[in-house]
Protein backbone atom coordinates (compact mmCIF):
# COMPACT_ATOMS: atom_id res chain seq x y z
CA UNK A 1 0.00 0.00 0.00
CA UNK A 2 1.56 3.27 -1.09
CA UNK A 3 1.73 6.41 1.02
CA UNK A 4 -0.61 8.07 -1.45
CA UNK A 5 -3.32 5.46 -1.09
CA UNK A 6 -2.82 5.43 2.67
CA UNK A 7 -3.01 9.15 3.34
CA UNK A 8 -4.19 11.12 0.32
CA UNK A 9 -6.63 8.87 -1.51
CA UNK A 10 -9.37 8.70 1.16
CA UNK A 11 -9.72 12.47 1.06
CA UNK A 12 -9.21 12.68 -2.71
CA UNK A 13 -11.90 10.19 -3.63
CA UNK A 14 -14.61 10.84 -1.05
CA UNK A 15 -16.34 14.21 -0.65
CA UNK A 16 -17.64 13.39 2.87
CA UNK A 17 -14.08 12.64 4.02
CA UNK A 18 -12.98 16.02 2.69
CA UNK A 19 -15.86 17.79 4.44
CA UNK A 20 -15.03 15.97 7.67
CA UNK A 21 -11.36 16.92 7.35
CA UNK A 22 -12.12 20.61 6.75
CA UNK A 23 -14.59 20.67 9.66
CA UNK A 24 -12.09 19.02 12.01
CA UNK A 25 -9.29 21.37 10.95
CA UNK A 26 -11.54 24.42 11.48
CA UNK A 27 -12.49 23.09 14.92
CA UNK A 28 -8.86 22.39 15.80
CA UNK A 29 -7.90 26.01 15.07
CA UNK A 30 -10.46 27.32 17.59
CA UNK A 31 -10.04 24.47 20.06
CA UNK A 32 -6.29 24.88 20.52
CA UNK A 33 -6.73 28.31 22.10
CA UNK A 34 -9.98 27.59 23.95
CA UNK A 35 -8.73 24.27 25.31
CA UNK A 36 -5.45 25.79 26.50
CA UNK A 37 -7.28 28.53 28.40
CA UNK A 38 -9.65 25.93 29.91
CA UNK A 39 -6.73 23.81 31.11
CA UNK A 40 -4.81 26.82 32.44
CA UNK A 41 -7.88 27.99 34.34
CA UNK A 42 -8.31 24.48 35.78
CA UNK A 43 -11.79 24.46 34.33
CA UNK A 44 -11.65 21.11 32.52
CA UNK A 45 -14.61 19.78 34.48
CA UNK A 46 -16.59 22.92 33.71
CA UNK A 47 -15.83 22.40 30.02
CA UNK A 48 -17.11 18.85 30.23
CA UNK A 49 -20.30 19.97 31.94
CA UNK A 50 -20.90 22.73 29.39
CA UNK A 51 -20.45 20.12 26.66
CA UNK A 52 -23.50 18.32 28.04
CA UNK A 53 -25.35 21.55 28.78
CA UNK A 54 -25.63 22.02 25.04
CA UNK A 55 -27.78 18.89 24.87
CA UNK A 56 -31.27 19.90 26.11
CA UNK A 57 -31.31 23.02 23.96
CA UNK A 58 -30.14 21.10 20.92
CA UNK A 59 -32.90 18.57 21.65
CA UNK A 60 -35.52 21.33 21.73
CA UNK A 61 -34.10 22.60 18.43
CA UNK A 62 -34.42 19.05 17.09
CA UNK A 63 -38.06 18.79 18.23
CA UNK A 64 -38.82 22.08 16.54
CA UNK A 65 -37.07 21.65 13.20
CA UNK A 66 -35.75 18.09 12.93
CA UNK A 67 -32.02 17.46 12.40
CA UNK A 68 -31.23 20.93 11.01
CA UNK A 69 -27.73 22.12 11.95
CA UNK A 70 -28.91 25.71 12.52
CA UNK A 71 -31.65 24.85 14.98
CA UNK A 72 -29.55 22.25 16.80
CA UNK A 73 -26.85 24.90 17.25
CA UNK A 74 -29.14 27.75 18.25
CA UNK A 75 -30.86 25.57 20.83
CA UNK A 76 -27.54 24.23 22.07
CA UNK A 77 -26.10 27.74 22.30
CA UNK A 78 -29.08 28.96 24.32
CA UNK A 79 -29.01 26.14 26.89
CA UNK A 80 -25.20 26.20 27.05
CA UNK A 81 -25.22 29.91 27.90
CA UNK A 82 -27.96 29.46 30.51
CA UNK A 83 -25.97 26.71 32.26
CA UNK A 84 -22.74 28.75 32.01
CA UNK A 85 -24.53 31.63 33.74
CA UNK A 86 -25.93 29.31 36.42
CA UNK A 87 -22.50 27.72 36.95
CA UNK A 88 -21.09 31.25 37.38
CA UNK A 89 -23.69 31.90 40.06
CA UNK A 90 -22.81 28.81 42.09
CA UNK A 91 -19.07 29.55 41.86
CA UNK A 92 -19.26 31.53 45.09
CA UNK A 93 -20.26 28.46 47.08
CA UNK A 94 -17.15 26.42 46.43
CA UNK A 95 -17.95 23.46 48.61
CA UNK A 96 -21.09 22.56 46.73
CA UNK A 97 -19.68 23.38 43.35
CA UNK A 98 -18.53 20.00 42.03
CA UNK A 99 -21.74 18.30 43.10
CA UNK A 100 -23.70 21.09 41.44
CA UNK A 101 -21.77 20.75 38.20
CA UNK A 102 -22.23 16.98 38.09
CA UNK A 103 -25.95 17.43 38.76
CA UNK A 104 -26.17 19.79 35.78
CA UNK A 105 -24.29 17.29 33.65
CA UNK A 106 -26.61 14.36 34.47
CA UNK A 107 -29.85 16.32 34.28
CA UNK A 108 -28.89 17.99 30.99
CA UNK A 109 -27.83 14.72 29.40
CA UNK A 110 -30.93 12.77 30.47
CA UNK A 111 -33.28 15.58 29.56
CA UNK A 112 -31.72 15.83 26.11
CA UNK A 113 -31.96 12.08 25.46
CA UNK A 114 -35.58 11.95 26.65
CA UNK A 115 -36.55 14.90 24.45
CA UNK A 116 -34.87 13.53 21.32
CA UNK A 117 -36.17 9.99 21.87
CA UNK A 118 -39.68 11.35 22.38
CA UNK A 119 -40.03 12.45 18.77
CA UNK A 120 -37.01 10.96 17.03
CA UNK A 121 -35.56 7.55 16.32
CA UNK A 122 -32.66 5.69 17.87
CA UNK A 123 -30.52 6.99 15.02
CA UNK A 124 -31.34 10.54 16.07
CA UNK A 125 -30.36 9.77 19.67
CA UNK A 126 -27.04 8.26 18.51
CA UNK A 127 -26.52 11.32 16.37
CA UNK A 128 -26.80 13.84 19.22
CA UNK A 129 -24.82 11.64 21.58
CA UNK A 130 -21.91 10.77 19.30
CA UNK A 131 -22.09 13.29 16.47
CA UNK A 132 -21.78 12.80 12.75
CA UNK A 133 -18.34 13.80 11.57
CA UNK A 134 -18.82 11.94 8.30
CA UNK A 135 -22.24 13.42 7.57
CA UNK A 136 -21.30 17.09 7.70
CA UNK A 137 -22.96 18.93 4.84
CA UNK A 138 -22.05 22.31 3.44
CA UNK A 139 -24.40 24.20 5.76
CA UNK A 140 -22.92 22.58 8.84
CA UNK A 141 -19.42 23.13 7.48
CA UNK A 142 -20.03 26.84 6.92
CA UNK A 143 -21.45 27.12 10.40
CA UNK A 144 -18.46 25.39 11.99
CA UNK A 145 -16.05 27.56 9.99
CA UNK A 146 -17.90 30.74 10.98
CA UNK A 147 -17.96 29.89 14.67
CA UNK A 148 -14.27 28.91 14.64
CA UNK A 149 -13.39 32.19 12.91
CA UNK A 150 -15.33 34.20 15.48
CA UNK A 151 -13.58 32.36 18.33
CA UNK A 152 -10.08 32.76 16.90
CA UNK A 153 -10.64 36.48 16.23
CA UNK A 154 -12.14 37.06 19.69
CA UNK A 155 -9.21 35.34 21.38
CA UNK A 156 -6.73 37.28 19.25
CA UNK A 157 -8.41 40.56 20.22
CA UNK A 158 -8.86 39.75 23.92
CA UNK A 159 -5.78 37.59 24.41
CA UNK A 160 -4.28 39.65 27.23
CA UNK A 161 -7.36 39.90 29.48
CA UNK A 162 -8.18 36.23 28.85
CA UNK A 163 -4.64 35.15 29.71
CA UNK A 164 -4.34 37.38 32.80
CA UNK A 165 -7.83 36.50 34.05
CA UNK A 166 -6.72 32.87 34.11
CA UNK A 167 -4.05 33.34 36.78
CA UNK A 168 -4.88 36.55 38.61
CA UNK A 169 -8.55 37.49 38.24
CA UNK A 170 -8.35 40.06 41.05
CA UNK A 171 -5.74 42.02 39.11
CA UNK A 172 -7.85 41.91 35.95
CA UNK A 173 -10.84 43.18 37.93
CA UNK A 174 -8.75 46.04 39.26
CA UNK A 175 -7.38 47.18 35.89
CA UNK A 176 -10.26 46.04 33.69
CA UNK A 177 -12.55 48.97 34.45
CA UNK A 178 -15.52 46.68 34.90
CA UNK A 179 -15.35 45.27 31.40
CA UNK A 180 -17.32 42.01 31.41
CA UNK A 181 -14.28 39.79 30.77
CA UNK A 182 -15.70 37.24 33.18
CA UNK A 183 -18.54 36.54 30.75
CA UNK A 184 -16.43 36.51 27.56
CA UNK A 185 -14.59 33.27 28.20
CA UNK A 186 -17.58 31.05 29.13
CA UNK A 187 -19.38 32.40 26.06
CA UNK A 188 -16.46 31.44 23.83
CA UNK A 189 -16.31 27.98 25.44
CA UNK A 190 -20.02 27.42 24.77
CA UNK A 191 -19.56 28.56 21.16
CA UNK A 192 -16.66 26.14 20.68
CA UNK A 193 -18.65 23.29 22.21
CA UNK A 194 -21.69 24.01 20.04
CA UNK A 195 -19.48 23.87 16.94
CA UNK A 196 -17.82 20.71 18.22
CA UNK A 197 -21.23 19.19 19.06
CA UNK A 198 -22.13 18.96 15.35
CA UNK A 199 -19.18 16.72 14.67
CA UNK A 200 -18.64 14.85 17.93
CA UNK A 201 -21.99 14.80 19.71
CA UNK A 202 -22.61 15.80 23.29
CA UNK A 203 -20.61 12.95 24.82
CA UNK A 204 -17.37 13.74 23.04
CA UNK A 205 -17.66 17.42 22.10
CA UNK A 206 -15.24 18.41 24.83
CA UNK A 207 -12.67 15.77 23.78
CA UNK A 208 -11.15 17.61 20.80
CA UNK A 209 -11.22 20.81 22.90
CA UNK A 210 -9.49 19.49 26.01
CA UNK A 211 -7.24 16.58 25.02
CA UNK A 212 -4.89 18.39 22.57
CA UNK A 213 -4.60 21.26 25.07
CA UNK A 214 -3.90 18.92 27.97
CA UNK A 215 -1.26 17.21 25.84
CA UNK A 216 0.34 20.53 24.88
CA UNK A 217 0.35 21.72 28.51
CA UNK A 218 2.66 18.83 29.45
CA UNK A 219 5.51 20.39 27.47
CA UNK A 220 5.91 23.41 29.77
CA UNK A 221 5.63 26.13 27.14
CA UNK A 222 4.26 29.65 27.57
CA UNK A 223 0.61 30.47 26.97
CA UNK A 224 0.95 31.31 23.27
CA UNK A 225 3.29 28.36 22.69
CA UNK A 226 0.85 25.98 24.39
CA UNK A 227 -1.97 27.29 22.22
CA UNK A 228 0.05 26.77 19.05
CA UNK A 229 1.12 23.26 20.06
CA UNK A 230 -2.45 22.36 21.09
CA UNK A 231 -3.68 23.51 17.69
CA UNK A 232 -0.99 21.38 16.02
CA UNK A 233 -1.93 18.35 18.13
CA UNK A 234 -5.60 18.92 17.28
CA UNK A 235 -4.86 19.03 13.56
CA UNK A 236 -2.70 15.90 13.76
CA UNK A 237 -5.31 14.00 15.79
CA UNK A 238 -8.03 14.96 13.29
CA UNK A 239 -6.10 13.69 10.27
CA UNK A 240 -4.91 10.55 12.07
CA UNK A 241 -8.35 9.78 13.49
CA UNK A 242 -10.11 10.17 10.16
CA UNK A 243 -7.57 7.92 8.41
CA UNK A 244 -7.80 5.25 11.11
CA UNK A 245 -11.57 5.40 10.89
CA UNK A 246 -11.42 5.01 7.09
CA UNK A 247 -8.91 2.18 6.93
CA UNK A 248 -10.00 0.39 10.08
CA UNK A 249 -13.72 0.90 9.53
CA UNK A 250 -14.26 2.32 13.02
CA UNK A 251 -16.48 5.28 14.03
CA UNK A 252 -14.64 8.50 13.13
CA UNK A 253 -15.55 10.75 16.11
CA UNK A 254 -14.22 8.30 18.71
CA UNK A 255 -11.19 7.58 16.50
CA UNK A 256 -10.25 11.30 16.50
CA UNK A 257 -10.77 11.60 20.27
CA UNK A 258 -8.69 8.45 20.78
CA UNK A 259 -5.90 9.86 18.62
CA UNK A 260 -5.92 13.04 20.75
CA UNK A 261 -5.95 10.87 23.88
CA UNK A 262 -2.94 8.97 22.57
CA UNK A 263 -1.09 12.27 22.06
CA UNK A 264 -1.93 13.21 25.65
CA UNK A 265 -0.63 9.88 26.95
CA UNK A 266 2.59 10.12 24.95
CA UNK A 267 3.15 13.74 26.06
CA UNK A 268 2.57 12.81 29.68
CA UNK A 269 4.97 9.88 29.63
CA UNK A 270 7.62 11.64 27.54
CA UNK A 271 7.73 14.82 29.64
CA UNK A 272 7.55 13.11 33.03
CA UNK A 273 10.33 10.65 32.17
CA UNK A 274 12.39 13.56 30.79
CA UNK A 275 11.90 15.38 34.08
CA UNK A 276 13.15 12.32 35.91
CA UNK A 277 16.25 12.04 33.70
CA UNK A 278 17.01 15.76 33.30
CA UNK A 279 18.01 16.53 36.93
CA UNK A 280 20.56 13.69 36.74
CA UNK A 281 22.06 15.17 33.60
CA UNK A 282 22.17 18.57 35.33
CA UNK A 283 23.84 16.96 38.36
CA UNK A 284 26.57 15.35 36.24
CA UNK A 285 27.42 18.58 34.48
Amino acid at each position, binding site marked *: MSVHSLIVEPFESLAFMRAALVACLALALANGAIGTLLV*LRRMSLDGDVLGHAVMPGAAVGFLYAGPSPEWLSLGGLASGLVVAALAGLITSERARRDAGLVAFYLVALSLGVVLVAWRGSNVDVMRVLFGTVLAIDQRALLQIATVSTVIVLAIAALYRPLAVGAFDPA*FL*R*AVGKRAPYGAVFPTLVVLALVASFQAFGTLMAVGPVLLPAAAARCWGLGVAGSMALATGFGLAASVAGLLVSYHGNVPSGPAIVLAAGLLFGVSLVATSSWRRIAPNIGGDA
Partner: protein
Amino acid sequence: MPQSFDLRVRREREGCGLAAGRVLLRDVTVRYGRRVALEAVSGEFASGSLTAVVGANGAGKSTLLAAIAGAVPLAGGVVNCAARQRLAYLPQLAAIDRDYPLTVWELITLGGWREFGVFRSPGTALRARAATAAETVGLTGRLRRPIGEISVGELQRALFARLILQDAAVILLDEPFAAVDEQSISVLLDQVTRWHQEGRTAIAVLHDLDLVRARFPSTLVLARRCLAWGTTQAALPAMAV
Protein backbone atom coordinates in the same frame (compact mmCIF):
# COMPACT_ATOMS: atom_id res chain seq x y z
CA MET B 1 -31.95 70.16 46.59
CA PRO B 2 -31.37 67.65 49.44
CA GLN B 3 -28.29 68.21 51.53
CA SER B 4 -26.93 64.70 51.01
CA PHE B 5 -26.68 65.41 47.29
CA ASP B 6 -24.62 68.55 47.95
CA LEU B 7 -22.33 66.58 50.20
CA ARG B 8 -21.80 63.94 47.56
CA VAL B 9 -20.95 66.51 44.91
CA ARG B 10 -18.52 68.16 47.27
CA ARG B 11 -16.85 64.83 48.00
CA GLU B 12 -16.43 64.10 44.34
CA ARG B 13 -14.86 67.52 43.76
CA GLU B 14 -12.49 66.95 46.64
CA GLY B 15 -11.60 63.68 44.95
CA CYS B 16 -9.85 65.57 42.18
CA GLY B 17 -7.68 67.51 44.61
CA LEU B 18 -5.54 66.76 47.62
CA ALA B 19 -7.86 64.21 49.19
CA ALA B 20 -7.54 61.90 46.18
CA GLY B 21 -6.13 59.01 48.19
CA ARG B 22 -8.73 59.17 50.92
CA VAL B 23 -10.90 56.11 51.58
CA LEU B 24 -14.09 56.71 53.51
CA LEU B 25 -16.13 53.84 55.01
CA ARG B 26 -19.67 54.29 56.25
CA ASP B 27 -21.43 51.35 57.95
CA VAL B 28 -19.67 48.89 55.63
CA THR B 29 -21.27 45.45 56.07
CA VAL B 30 -20.38 42.27 54.16
CA ARG B 31 -22.12 38.90 54.41
CA TYR B 32 -21.10 35.53 52.99
CA GLY B 33 -24.40 33.69 52.86
CA ARG B 34 -25.79 34.01 56.38
CA ARG B 35 -22.43 34.66 57.99
CA VAL B 36 -21.64 38.28 58.74
CA ALA B 37 -17.98 38.86 57.87
CA LEU B 38 -17.91 42.59 58.51
CA GLU B 39 -20.43 44.64 60.43
CA ALA B 40 -21.03 48.37 60.22
CA VAL B 41 -17.43 49.51 59.92
CA SER B 42 -17.14 53.28 59.64
CA GLY B 43 -14.13 55.55 59.48
CA GLU B 44 -11.57 57.18 57.26
CA PHE B 45 -8.17 56.29 55.85
CA ALA B 46 -6.71 59.75 55.32
CA SER B 47 -4.98 60.47 52.04
CA GLY B 48 -1.33 59.47 52.35
CA SER B 49 -1.86 57.46 55.54
CA LEU B 50 -0.15 54.15 56.26
CA THR B 51 -2.44 51.84 58.20
CA ALA B 52 -2.08 48.30 59.50
CA VAL B 53 -5.26 46.22 59.78
CA VAL B 54 -4.99 43.66 62.58
CA GLY B 55 -7.32 41.20 64.28
CA ALA B 56 -7.85 37.52 64.99
CA ASN B 57 -8.47 34.97 62.23
CA GLY B 58 -11.91 35.46 60.73
CA ALA B 59 -12.06 39.05 61.96
CA GLY B 60 -12.87 40.28 58.46
CA LYS B 61 -9.48 41.81 57.63
CA SER B 62 -9.24 40.38 54.11
CA THR B 63 -12.91 41.06 53.59
CA LEU B 64 -12.37 44.71 54.44
CA LEU B 65 -9.68 45.05 51.76
CA ALA B 66 -11.81 43.18 49.23
CA ALA B 67 -14.72 45.50 50.05
CA ILE B 68 -12.59 48.60 49.50
CA ALA B 69 -11.31 47.13 46.22
CA GLY B 70 -14.88 46.38 45.14
CA ALA B 71 -14.11 42.66 44.88
CA VAL B 72 -16.99 41.61 47.17
CA PRO B 73 -20.53 43.00 47.14
CA LEU B 74 -21.55 45.10 50.16
CA ALA B 75 -24.59 43.98 52.13
CA GLY B 76 -24.85 47.53 53.46
CA GLY B 77 -23.02 50.82 53.79
CA VAL B 78 -20.80 52.75 51.42
CA VAL B 79 -17.13 52.72 50.44
CA ASN B 80 -16.19 56.13 49.17
CA CYS B 81 -12.90 56.15 47.31
CA ALA B 82 -12.35 58.92 44.77
CA ALA B 83 -9.21 57.17 43.51
CA ARG B 84 -10.99 53.92 42.66
CA GLN B 85 -9.46 54.08 39.20
CA ARG B 86 -6.01 54.38 40.76
CA LEU B 87 -6.40 51.67 43.36
CA ALA B 88 -4.11 48.65 43.50
CA TYR B 89 -5.11 45.53 45.39
CA LEU B 90 -2.74 42.69 46.25
CA PRO B 91 -4.73 39.70 47.55
CA GLN B 92 -3.12 36.87 49.55
CA LEU B 93 -0.54 34.96 47.56
CA ALA B 94 -2.73 31.86 47.47
CA ALA B 95 -5.04 33.69 45.06
CA ILE B 96 -2.36 33.52 42.36
CA ASP B 97 -1.93 30.37 40.30
CA ARG B 98 1.81 29.71 40.40
CA ASP B 99 1.65 26.92 37.83
CA TYR B 100 0.68 29.46 35.22
CA PRO B 101 3.31 29.71 32.46
CA LEU B 102 4.43 33.30 32.97
CA THR B 103 7.89 34.78 33.55
CA VAL B 104 8.77 37.20 36.33
CA TRP B 105 9.36 39.91 33.70
CA GLU B 106 5.91 39.38 32.14
CA LEU B 107 4.30 39.51 35.58
CA ILE B 108 6.00 42.79 36.47
CA THR B 109 5.27 44.56 33.17
CA LEU B 110 1.56 43.79 33.59
CA GLY B 111 1.65 46.64 36.12
CA GLY B 112 1.70 49.02 33.16
CA TRP B 113 -1.67 47.74 31.93
CA ARG B 114 -3.29 51.17 32.06
CA GLU B 115 -0.64 52.46 29.66
CA PHE B 116 -0.59 49.68 27.09
CA GLY B 117 -4.16 48.49 27.61
CA VAL B 118 -5.61 45.37 26.07
CA PHE B 119 -4.01 45.50 22.63
CA ARG B 120 -0.61 47.19 22.58
CA SER B 121 2.68 45.82 23.84
CA PRO B 122 4.67 47.63 26.55
CA GLY B 123 6.66 50.61 25.17
CA THR B 124 10.32 51.43 25.77
CA ALA B 125 9.64 53.88 28.59
CA LEU B 126 7.49 51.36 30.42
CA ARG B 127 10.07 48.60 29.98
CA ALA B 128 12.69 50.88 31.47
CA ARG B 129 10.43 51.57 34.46
CA ALA B 130 9.79 47.84 34.83
CA ALA B 131 13.53 47.19 34.88
CA THR B 132 13.98 49.88 37.56
CA ALA B 133 11.14 48.41 39.62
CA ALA B 134 12.69 44.94 39.34
CA GLU B 135 16.00 46.38 40.53
CA THR B 136 14.29 48.12 43.45
CA VAL B 137 12.97 44.80 44.75
CA GLY B 138 16.20 42.97 43.92
CA LEU B 139 14.92 40.69 41.15
CA THR B 140 17.13 41.80 38.26
CA GLY B 141 18.76 38.38 37.88
CA ARG B 142 15.47 36.49 38.00
CA LEU B 143 13.46 38.13 35.22
CA ARG B 144 13.43 35.19 32.81
CA ARG B 145 12.37 32.64 35.41
CA PRO B 146 8.82 31.24 35.32
CA ILE B 147 6.82 32.32 38.39
CA GLY B 148 6.50 28.67 39.41
CA GLU B 149 10.28 28.35 39.88
CA ILE B 150 10.97 31.23 42.26
CA SER B 151 10.51 31.35 46.03
CA VAL B 152 7.44 32.77 47.76
CA GLY B 153 9.47 35.79 48.83
CA GLU B 154 10.63 36.40 45.27
CA LEU B 155 7.08 36.09 43.93
CA GLN B 156 5.91 38.65 46.47
CA ARG B 157 8.78 40.94 45.40
CA ALA B 158 7.69 40.57 41.77
CA LEU B 159 4.12 41.48 42.75
CA PHE B 160 5.44 44.54 44.61
CA ALA B 161 7.38 45.55 41.48
CA ARG B 162 4.11 45.24 39.55
CA LEU B 163 2.48 47.48 42.17
CA ILE B 164 5.28 50.04 41.70
CA LEU B 165 4.47 50.16 37.98
CA GLN B 166 0.76 50.53 38.70
CA ASP B 167 1.52 53.94 40.23
CA ALA B 168 -1.59 53.69 42.43
CA ALA B 169 -2.88 56.36 44.83
CA VAL B 170 -4.35 53.73 47.15
CA ILE B 171 -2.51 50.43 47.76
CA LEU B 172 -4.19 47.50 49.53
CA LEU B 173 -1.93 44.67 50.74
CA ASP B 174 -3.42 41.46 52.15
CA GLU B 175 -0.87 39.70 54.40
CA PRO B 176 2.04 40.79 52.20
CA PHE B 177 4.66 39.17 54.45
CA ALA B 178 3.02 35.79 55.10
CA ALA B 179 5.42 32.89 54.36
CA VAL B 180 7.99 35.39 53.05
CA ASP B 181 11.68 35.09 54.06
CA GLU B 182 13.28 37.69 56.36
CA GLN B 183 15.41 39.31 53.67
CA SER B 184 12.42 39.76 51.35
CA ILE B 185 10.35 41.20 54.20
CA SER B 186 12.93 43.91 54.76
CA VAL B 187 13.00 44.75 51.02
CA LEU B 188 9.19 44.85 50.90
CA LEU B 189 8.88 46.91 54.08
CA ASP B 190 11.28 49.49 52.66
CA GLN B 191 9.05 49.74 49.61
CA VAL B 192 5.94 50.22 51.77
CA THR B 193 7.74 53.02 53.60
CA ARG B 194 8.73 54.57 50.25
CA TRP B 195 5.10 54.54 49.11
CA HIS B 196 4.16 56.27 52.36
CA GLN B 197 6.82 58.93 51.79
CA GLU B 198 5.53 59.47 48.26
CA GLY B 199 2.15 60.38 49.75
CA ARG B 200 0.26 57.26 48.67
CA THR B 201 -2.38 55.74 50.91
CA ALA B 202 -1.35 52.23 51.97
CA ILE B 203 -3.46 49.74 53.92
CA ALA B 204 -1.96 46.38 54.93
CA VAL B 205 -3.41 43.36 56.71
CA LEU B 206 -0.72 42.12 59.13
CA HIS B 207 -0.21 39.57 61.89
CA ASP B 208 3.17 40.60 63.31
CA LEU B 209 2.28 43.20 65.96
CA ASP B 210 5.94 44.11 66.64
CA LEU B 211 6.30 45.00 63.01
CA VAL B 212 3.09 47.06 63.17
CA ARG B 213 4.43 48.94 66.19
CA ALA B 214 7.77 49.62 64.51
CA ARG B 215 6.69 50.64 61.01
CA PHE B 216 2.99 51.54 60.81
CA PRO B 217 1.80 54.93 62.13
CA SER B 218 -1.93 54.01 62.11
CA THR B 219 -3.77 50.84 63.06
CA LEU B 220 -7.29 49.50 62.66
CA VAL B 221 -8.25 46.65 65.00
CA LEU B 222 -11.05 44.47 63.63
CA ALA B 223 -13.23 41.78 65.16
CA ARG B 224 -15.95 41.84 62.51
CA ARG B 225 -16.71 45.28 63.95
CA CYS B 226 -14.17 48.04 64.33
CA LEU B 227 -12.66 47.74 67.85
CA ALA B 228 -10.21 50.61 67.56
CA TRP B 229 -8.93 52.86 64.81
CA GLY B 230 -6.32 55.56 65.21
CA THR B 231 -2.62 55.97 65.90
CA THR B 232 -0.94 52.62 66.44
CA GLN B 233 -0.05 53.58 70.00
CA ALA B 234 -3.66 54.32 70.88
CA ALA B 235 -5.37 51.57 68.89
CA LEU B 236 -3.14 48.53 69.27
CA PRO B 237 -3.91 47.85 72.97
CA ALA B 238 -7.45 46.91 71.82
CA MET B 239 -5.89 43.72 70.38
CA ALA B 240 -5.20 42.44 73.89
CA VAL B 241 -8.82 42.78 75.02
